[in-house]
């Protein structure tokens, strides 16, 4: 309305519209990350809602030209680490049955997404989906977070390092070991259930082990030192 001279009210409406335009468009992506971090749909929904509400309250502190998705993922990750892990631990102590419910939630959610496919395929995907959550359960939180931010969200090492507040080298080694463990247990589950017949399963303990230090910065430092000595 041309006469809407109440600037404060106008500002509040603009803030909401801007938040919807820049932040809420990432709801699917945030849910994907939360689903893989929490490993069940119910916790993932709570985590996404809490994180978005938090983001809305602190919207003024978001730097408009920076990467909004990375900013939101930082909030999701921090909220997950600070609250959901603690909550989950206490809940597991109180209610051992919840784990079963969580697993069911994941299946229902997935079944809904695939219900237009053939029954056999749906059955197969359900099992695979269970395997993924089981494989993720086996990862330490830091490894899982690095893998989710990189392989579900496509963030760069630098963005992940900013979110997890660790050096890029640490991100790389978490990512490296997390992927190894995950790939190995996915293969193991698949072989155990007869989906994959080829190649002997890598041992989990072996999968995480490497002689080499995974660190691009160190490699670059060594490389430029070499080049310096050559010239």
């Amino acid at each position, binding site marked *: 309305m041309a*006469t809407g001279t109440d600037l404060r009210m106008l500002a509040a409406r603009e803030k909401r519209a801007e938040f919807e335009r820049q932040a809420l468009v990432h709801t699917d992506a945030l849910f994907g990350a939360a689903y893989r971090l929490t490993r069940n749909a119910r916790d993932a929904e709570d985590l996404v809602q809490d994180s978005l509400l938090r983001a809305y309250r602190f919207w003024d502190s978001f730097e408009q030209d920076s990467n909004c998705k990375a900013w939101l993922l930082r909030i999701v990750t921090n909220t997950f680490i600070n609250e959901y892990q603690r909550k989950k631990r206490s809940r597991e102590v109180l209610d051992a049955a919840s784990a079963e419910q969580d697993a069911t939630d994941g299946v229902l959610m997935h079944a809904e997404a695939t219900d237009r496919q053939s029954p056999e395929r749906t059955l197969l995907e359900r099992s695979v989906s269970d*395997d993924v959550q089981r*494989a993720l359960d086996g990862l330490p939180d830091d490894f899982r977070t690095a893998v989710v931010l990189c*392989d579900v969200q496509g963030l760069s090492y630098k963005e992940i390092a900013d979110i997890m507040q660790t050096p890029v080298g640490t991100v790389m080694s978490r990512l490296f070991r997390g992927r*190894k463990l*995950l*790939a190995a247990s996915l293969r193991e589950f698949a072989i155990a259930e007869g989906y994959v017949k080829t190649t002997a399963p890598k041992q989990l303990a072996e999968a995480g082990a490497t002689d080499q230090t*995974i660190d691009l910065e160190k490699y670059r430092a060594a490389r430029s030192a070499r080049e310096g000595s050559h010239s």
Partner: protein
Amino acid sequence: MSLCHSIETLSMAFLDDELAAEERRELELHLLDCASCRQLVDGERADLELVRKALVAPPAPALLKARITRALDAEDVAVARRERRRWSQWLLPGSAMAAAAASILVFVGLGATPGSRENSPFTRDAAKQEIHALPLEVQGASTGPWLRDHFAPVEPPQFTEPGIALLGARLLPNGIANHDAALLSYLVTIGANRVTLTAVVLKDLRGDDLGGGQAYQVGNQILRVHDTDGMPAVTYVDQGRNVGYVFTSERLTADELIRLVVSTDLVARASQRR
């Protein structure tokens, strides 16, 4: 020199597209010559594809999106309420309304009668008009004549307080709950601060159509104060003409709003006719 020594680092950064152009070229050249590194990179690529494919997540459920919208709405209402509280602290002492407020408080204090807290659908729908902010059909000085032409016999309520101007009006195309309705918009200026105030006027109402809320007796007339989703609304039915009024302002408290409404000529007009 051989890159074999750092191949795990390089392979990972290569597959994640984190290598600089020159590093990438170096590695690609090396892979042409070194079968064991090539094999390692291929194995890593297969692992990465397996992991990425497995981790594809379902989209957010529609219910979650609805929950988020509700949570943000609730946050907006809470913030607006806090803002109003701030405004009311600033509005009350020493403002132009203080004198009028004192006289009205007597009526309100004496006349408060307990009533049902349930809001009528009229009040709720009318209060929403403030939020929808439809464009005005007429503005400024021609608003009064326009309203007489298009919405007789309703006269725009005049505020006796200084600093309150009628901005304009519009008819509500669908009416409200099957009653013809018009919206009047006022600008309340106090010092450097300005807030809008909306009056929705409904025709052919009965006295209890705007029931509910908290009833206050002013002279021989009844005003009601309602809470509509955190926003106060003051309603009044002119029994002689069967015309109902719903006043709302997103920035004002219920107290401020009722003081403003009492200061209109509505109540005085109705009392004179009796």
